[in-house]
C-alpha cells in the first residue's frame, strides 16, 4: 500500500487544482450517465437540464476557468515545468539488470506544464466549452436524439476529460492512457446512432485504424522506456539522459520515435491510416467538430510536437533527420491526397473532413521540417539558427491553433447548416406528423440540397466564410500567418536537403488546392441560387448554435494579434515570454514585414507565389465553376456581398466546362477515395478474416482434431481389444496356454 508518494512539492495555488481539470469531467461522466439512466424521459431532466447538457456545461466551464487560471499562472512564470502537485506512484515494480539486486521502477502520474501544454490546454478547454454550448442547440432540438442525449453528454465529457488529461499528463505513458480514452469516446460517439449500420461500421473502423497506430505507439513507448528507464517528460527530455542514450542507442531511439509517430499517424488520420476520418462523419456534428476537427486529431500532432526535444538535442545532432523527413513526407502526401479527394466530395462534412486531414498534414510537414532544422542546425549556439528553428516549430504549432479554432467553427457552422436544412426538409415533407426521419433518401449533408443560404443564415455564412479564409490562408486572416510559415520552412529545408523538395512542393500545391475546395464548399452552400425547394425554406438557427460561431469568428480574426504577440516564437521557445517581450503593435508590424517584405528574395517570391495560389488561383477556379448570385430578393450581410458578387462575376467571365474532368477516371478514383478503403477492406476480408478462419479451422481440425483422434482411436482400439474376447471358452484356454508358454520362455530366456 504505497498510494501517493511525494516526489515534488507544491508551489502555486491554482496549479494544485490542475487535476480537477481532468477529474471534473470524469466525474460528470458518471453523474450524467447515472442520472440519465434513472431519469430518462423525465420532463425536468429533458427540458430543464437538457438531458445532461446543462450539467456538462458548468463542468466544462469550470475546466476552462481552471485551465485559464493555470495558464495565467504559468504565463506569470510562477511555476516550473513539472512541479505541480504530488505525483501519484501508479505502478511500482522492479527490474533486474544484472547484479545482485533488483531495481525498483515506478510509473507515476503527474501534471506537466510547458508552452505546448498551455497552448493545447487552452484550445481544448475553450473549444470543448463552445462545442458544449453548440451541442445543446444542436442535439436537443432534434427529436431523433430524444431520450438518449444523456449518452451523448456523458461520452462528451469523458472525451473532454481524456483530451485535457492527455495535454496535462507528465509522461508519455499517461499521454497514451488518455489517448486511448479519447479513442474509446470517439468510438462511442461515432457510433452514437448505433442503429445505423454505417455508423456502427464507421465507429469500428475508427477505433481499429487508430488502434493499429496505437499498437506501434505502444511499442515505441516501450522501447523509449527501455532507453530511458522512464517515460516522464522530465526524465526523457533531460539533456544528460539524452546524451547517455545518444551515445550508443541513437538508432534505437529513432526506431522508437518512428513507431510512436505511427501512432500519431493513426490518430491524426494521415496517410496511410487516414481512412477512418471521413467515415467518422457518421457521428453527430458536434462530435465531428470536437473530436475530428478541433481536438482529438490534434493529439497526434501533440505527440509529435512532444518529441521535439529529442530532435533538438545537441547530443542527437543529425541522428534523427531521416525520421524528420518521413514525418514531413507523410504530411506532404496526405496534404495533396486529401485535398484532391475533397475536390469531388458533395457531402459538406466530408469536405471538411478531408480538409482536416489536409491541414493536419500541413502541420506534420511543418513539424517535420522544424525537426529537421532542429536536428541539423547548430541552434543551441547559433542565434540565427536558433531563431529559424524556433519559428519553424512555432509556425506549426500556431497552425495547429488556427486550424483548431477555424475547423471547429467550420464544423459547427456546417452543423448549423445541416441542422436547418434537415429541419426545413422535415417541415416541408412531413409536416407535423412526427414521422420517422429515416424513411427517405434525403441527405441533409449534401451540398446538392443547399445553395444560396448566405441570406438565410447570415451568421453561419459569415463564420463559414472566415473559417474558410483562415484555412485557405487568405492574407491577414487566421491561418495565413502560420501557413505561410510552414510553406516557407518547407522550402527552407528543401534548400538544405533535396529530399524535402517533395513535401515542399506538396504543401505549395496543396495551398492552391485548399483554396479551391474551401471556396467550392462555401460557394456551393451559400452562394448562387437554392438548389432545390428545401434549400429555399431554410430558416435562421437558434442562439445556442449562434453563440459559439460568433465567438469563434472573432477568435479566428484575432489571430493576427496572437501573431503580433509573438505566438510563433513563444510556442516553441521556453525562454520567450509571451506578454512582455514585444509591444503588440511592433509585433504585428514585424510580422507583416516579415511576411510581405521578406528581405530574402527567395522567400519574398515564395510568399507571393503562395498567396497567388491559395488566394487567387484556387478560389478563382472555384468561383468560375460554382460562383453565382443569390436568388432574387435575397440579401445578405454587407461583408459577404462583395464575395458573392465577385464569385458571380468570375463565374460569368471565366466559367468553363469541367465535365471532362468530372467524367475522368481520376475523378472517379477520387470519389472512391483513391480506392484505398476498398483495398483495406479487401485485405481485411481476404487476408485477415480469411487467415483467421483458416487458423480457427486448424484449431478445431488439427489441434482439437488430434485430441479427438486420440479419443476415437482409443475407442476403436477398445473395440479391437474387446473383440479378442470371443466368447468361446476354447479361445480363453488357448490364451492361457499361450501365456504359459510365453512366461516359461521368458523366464527361461532371462535366466
Amino acid at each position, binding site marked *: 500500500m504505497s498510494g501517493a508518494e511525494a516526489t515534488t512539492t507544491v508551489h502555486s495555488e491554482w496549479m494544485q487544482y490542475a487535476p480537477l481539470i481532468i477529474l471534473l469531467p470524469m466525474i460528470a461522466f458518471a453523474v450524467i450517465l447515472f442520472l440519465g439512466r434513472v431519469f430518462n424521459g423525465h420532463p425536468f431532466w429533458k427540458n430543464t437540464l437538457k438531458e445532461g447538457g446543462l450539467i456538462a456545461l458548468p463542468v466544462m466551464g469550470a475546466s476552462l476557468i481552471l485551465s485559464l487560471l493555470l495558464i495565467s499562472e504559468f504565463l506569470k512564470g510562477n511555476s516550473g515545468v513539472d512541479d505541480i502537485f504530488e505525483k501519484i506512484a501508479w505502478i511500482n515494480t522492479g527490474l533486474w539488470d544484472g547484479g545482485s539486486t533488483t531495481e525498483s521502477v515506478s510509473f507515476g502520474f503527474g501534471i506537466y506544464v510547458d508552452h505546448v501544454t498551455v497552448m493545447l490546454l487552452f484550445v481544448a478547454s475553450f473549444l470543448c466549452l463552445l462545442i458544449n454550448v453548440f451541442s445543446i442547440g444542436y442535439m436537443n432540438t432534434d427529436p431523433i436524439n430524444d431520450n438518449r442525449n444523456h449518452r451523448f453528454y456523458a461520452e462528451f465529457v469523458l472525451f473532454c476529460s481524456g483530451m485535457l488529461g492527455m495535454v496535462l499528463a507528465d509522461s508519455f505513458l499517461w499521454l497514451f492512457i488518455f489517448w486511448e480514452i479519447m479513442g474509446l469516446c470517439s468510438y462511442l460517439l461515432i457510433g452514437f446512432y448505433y442503429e445505423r449500420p454505417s455508423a456502427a461500421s464507421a465507429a469500428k473502423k475508427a477505433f481499429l485504424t487508430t488502434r493499429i497506430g496505437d499498437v506501434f505507439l505502444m511499442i515505441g513507448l516501450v522501447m523509449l522506456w527501455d532507453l530511458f528507464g522512464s517515460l516522464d517528460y522530465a526524465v526523457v527530455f533531460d539533456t544528460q539522459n539524452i546524451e547517455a542514450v545518444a551515445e550508443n542507442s541513437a538508432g534505437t531511439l529513432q526506431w522508437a520515435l518512428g513507431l510512436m509517430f505511427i501512432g500519431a499517424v493513426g490518430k491524426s488520420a494521415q496517410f496511410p491510416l487516414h481512412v477512418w476520418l471521413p467515415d467518422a462523419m457518421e457521428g453527430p456534428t458536434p462530435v465531428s467538430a470536437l473530436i475530428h476537427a478541433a481536438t482529438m486529431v490534434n493529439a497526434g500532432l501533440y505527440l509529435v510536437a512532444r518529441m521535439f526535444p529529442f530532435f533538438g538535442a545537441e547530443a542527437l545532432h543529425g541522428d534523427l533527420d531521416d525520421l524528420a523527413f518521413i514525418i514531413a513526407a507523410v504530411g506532404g502526401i496526405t496534404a495533396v491526397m486529401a485535398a484532391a479527394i475533397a475536390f469531388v466530395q458533395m457531402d459538406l462534412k466530408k469536405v471538411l473532413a478531408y480538409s482536416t486531414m489536409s491541414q493536419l498534414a500541413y502541420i506534420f510537414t511543418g513539424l517535420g521540417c522544424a525537426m529537421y532544422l532542429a536536428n541539423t542546425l547548430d541552434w543551441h549556439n547559433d542565434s540565427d539558427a536558433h531563431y529559424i528553428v524556433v519559428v519553424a516549430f512555432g509556425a506549426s504549432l500556431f497552425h495547429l491553433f488556427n486550424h483548431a479554432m477555424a475547423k471547429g467553427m467550420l464544423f459547427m457552422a456546417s452543423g448549423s447548416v445541416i441542422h436547418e436544412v434537415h429541419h426545413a426538409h422535415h417541415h416541408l415533407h412531413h409536416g407535423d406528423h412526427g414521422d420517422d426521419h429515416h424513411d427517405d433518401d434525403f441527405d441533409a449533408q449534401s451540398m446538392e440540397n443547399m445553395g444560396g443560404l448566405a441570406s438565410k443564415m447570415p451568421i453561419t455564412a459569415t463564420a463559414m466564410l472566415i473559417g474558410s479564409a483562415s484555412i485557405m490562408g487568405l492574407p491577414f486572416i487566421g491561418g495565413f500567418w502560420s501557413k505561410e510559415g510552414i510553406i516557407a520552412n518547407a522550402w527552407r529545408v528543401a534548400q538544405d536537403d533535396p529530399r524535402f523538395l517533395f513535401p515542399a512542393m506538396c504543401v505549395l500545391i496543396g495551398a492552391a488546392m485548399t483554396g479551391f475546395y474551401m471556396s467550392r464548399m462555401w460557394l456551393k452552400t451559400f452562394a448562387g441560387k437554392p438548389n432545390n425547394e428545401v434549400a429555399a425554406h431554410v430558416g435562421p438557427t437558434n442562439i445556442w448554435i449562434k453563440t459559439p460561431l460568433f465567438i469563434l469568428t472573432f477568435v479566428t480574426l484575432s489571430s493576427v494579434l496572437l501573431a503580433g504577440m509573438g505566438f510563433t516564437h513563444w510556442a516553441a521557445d521556453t525562454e520567450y515570454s509571451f506578454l512582455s517581450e514585444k509591444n503588440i503593435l511592433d509585433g504585428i508590424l514585424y510580422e507583416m514585414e516579415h511576411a510581405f517584405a521578406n528581405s530574402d528574395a527567395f522567400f519574398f517570391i515564395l510568399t507571393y507565389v503562395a498567396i497567388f495560389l491559395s488566394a487567387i488561383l484556387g478560389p478563382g477556379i472555384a468561383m468560375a465553376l460554382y460562383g453565382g448570385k443569390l436568388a432574387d430578393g435575397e440579401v445578405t450581410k454587407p461583408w459577404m456581398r462583395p464575395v458573392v458578387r465577385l464569385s458571380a462575376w468570375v463565374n460569368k467571365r471565366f466559367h468553363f466546362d469541367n465535365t471532362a474532368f468530372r467524367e475522368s477516371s481520376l475523378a472517379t478514383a477520387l470519389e472512391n477515395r483513391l480506392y484505398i478503403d476498398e483495398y483495406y477492406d479487401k485485405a481485411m476480408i481476404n487476408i485477415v478474416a480469411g487467415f483467421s478462419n483458416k487458423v480457427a479451422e486448424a484449431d478445431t481440425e488439427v489441434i482439437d482434431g488430434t485430441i479427438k483422434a486420440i479419443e476415437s482411436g482409443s475407442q476403436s482400439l477398445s473395440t479391437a481389444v*474387446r473383440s479378442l474376447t470371443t466368447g468361446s*471358452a476354447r479361445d480363453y484356454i488357448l490364451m492361457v496356454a499361450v501365456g*504359459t508358454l510365453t512366461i516359461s520362455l521368458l*523366464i527361461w530366456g532371462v535366466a
Partner: protein
Amino acid sequence: MSNVSRVEPFGDGFITALCPELMLFAGMLLLILVPNLGKGTFRIPGTQIRLPWLLGGTRFKFSSDPRLPAWIASLTLGGAFLSVLYIFNQGLERVVIVSESGKELLLINGFSRIFELIFFGALALAAFSSMNRLQVKGIGSKVSEHELYNNRRQADFYILMVTCALGMSVVALAQDLFVLFIGLELASFSTYVLVAFLKESKVGVESGMKYFIVGSVASGVGLYGLSMLYLWAGSLQFSVLAATFAVSGTTALPLIGIGFVLVGFGFKVSAAPFHFAAPDAYAGAISPVAGVLATASKAMGMLGLVRMLLIVAAPESSDGSAVWLVCLGAMAAITMTWGNLAALGSDNPKRMLAYSSVAHAGYMLAALTAVGAWNWDAAVAGDASAAAVAVMTALIFHLVVLVAFKLGAFLVLSILESEGGASRLSSLGGLAKREPLLAVAMFIFMISLAGVPPMAGFLSKLLVIMGIVRIAVGDMGAEIADGGIYVLGDMHWVWWLALLMVINSAISVFYYLRVVVVMFFDEPEQGREGPLPGGWQVRVAILACVLTTVLVGVAGDSLIRLCEMAAQSLNYNW
C-alpha cells in the same frame, strides 16, 4: 524364528489362534443344520415311536425364513471379521501351526490376518447385502416375496460363501505351497458354483462354465508347476523352497515351475492373458458375487503371488537379477493397458467393472514388480527393505480399500439388477433422479476407482505409485546430496510402469465418468422411472462402503500403519 509360538493341531492355543477360522467352520455347520430344523421325527425302526429329532419335516417358522441363512452367514463372516479386528487390536501374536513331523502348515501373523480382513469383510458385505436380493429366477425378472420364501437354495448360496471364506483364509495362512493350493481350490470351487448359481438363466450358467473351465485349466497348470517344484526341492514348505532356491534357483526346472504356478495365480488376479474368462464371469454372475470375485478372490490370487514370488523366489533376487521381474513387469503393463482399453468401449457396466478390475490387477502387479526390484542396485538401492515394505504396504492397502469401492459399485448395480438387469449402461440412467444418494454413492465409487482425490482410491493409487517411484529412485536422493550425479535414466525401469500407470488412470477416467454422466444426465430407461426396489441391508452395506471410501481417503493414516505392520511381518529379511 523368534517371537513365534509353535502350535500343533488341536494343541494348546490352537483354538485361540484359529478363532476366526473356527468360527467360520461353526457357521458353516450351522448353515447346514439350522435351515433344516423342523418338526421332523425319527421313527425307531420297527416301532411306531417317533422321536423328534428336529431335522426335516415341516420346518419351523424361523428356520424356514429365507433370510435366515443370510443372517447366519453374515453374522459368521462379520463375526470372523470382527474377531480378526479384535485380534489386531489386542496385539497380534505370531503363531505357526506345525504338523507332528514339524512341518509348518499355517502361519498367523499380521500379513495373513490383514488378508483375512479383506476376505471376511468382502464376503460379509456381499452376504449381508444379498439378503432378500438373491435372484433365483434369472436376470430380468423381479423376485416375488413368495418365490423367495419357498426357496431352499438360499442356504446353499450362503454355505458356499462361508466355504469360500474358509478356503481363502487357508490361503492366507498357508506356509506350505500345497496347503495354499488346497485353500485356493476350496475357494475357487465355491466361487465357480456361486458364479453359476443362477442356473435358470443362460448367462448365469455360461459364465459359470467359462469361469470353471478356464479356472480349472489354470489351476491344472498351477498344480503341475507345484509338482515340478516338488520334484526339484523335495518339499513345498516355503522355508525349504526359499532355502533351496537360494542355492540353485536359476535352473530351468524351478523357474518354469514358478512360471506355471504364476499362471494359476494369474488367473485368480485376472492378469492378462489369463483374464479372459473374468469379464464373462462378472457379467453373468450376480453382482455381489462379481464383487467378491473382483475383491476377495483377487486379493487371494495376489496373496498367492506374493507368497510365491517374494518368499520363495526373493532370495534369488538378492543379486539384483530377479528373472521373473521382467516377466511380471511385462504382464503388469499389458494387463493394465488391456483392461483399461477394453473397459473404454464397454457398454455393460458389469463388464466395464470387470475390465477395470483387470486394470487394477495390472496396477497391483506393477507394485509387485517393484517389490521384486527392491534391491536392484546396491549402489543406489538405499534403504531397500524399507522401500520394499512401502510397496508392499501400498499393495495391501490397495487390496483393502478396493473392497470398499469396487464391491460398493457392484452392490449398487445389484440393486438395479434385482429390478431387472444391469447389463446396459442405460440401466443406470436417471439414477440421480430416482435415488440421489445412491447415485452419489456410485459417483464416489467411480471417482475412487479412477483415483480422484480425496477418495480412498486416490490414496491407494498414490501409495502404489509412491512405492514404485521409491523403488525406482532408490537412494539417489542421498547420493545426490553426497555429490553424485544422476540422470533420470539411472532410475530402475519400474518407474516407467508408474508412468504407464498414471496414463492408464487418465484413460480410465473416461469410462468411470461415463457412468456418472449416465446417472446424472440421462433419463431413466422406459419402465424404470419409479423408485428402486427397497431393502435396507444392501443400502447399509453401500453406506459402509461409502464411509470407508471417503474416510480412508481423507484420513487413511491408521490404515496405512496397519498395512505397514502387515507388510513388515511378511519377511524376516525386511
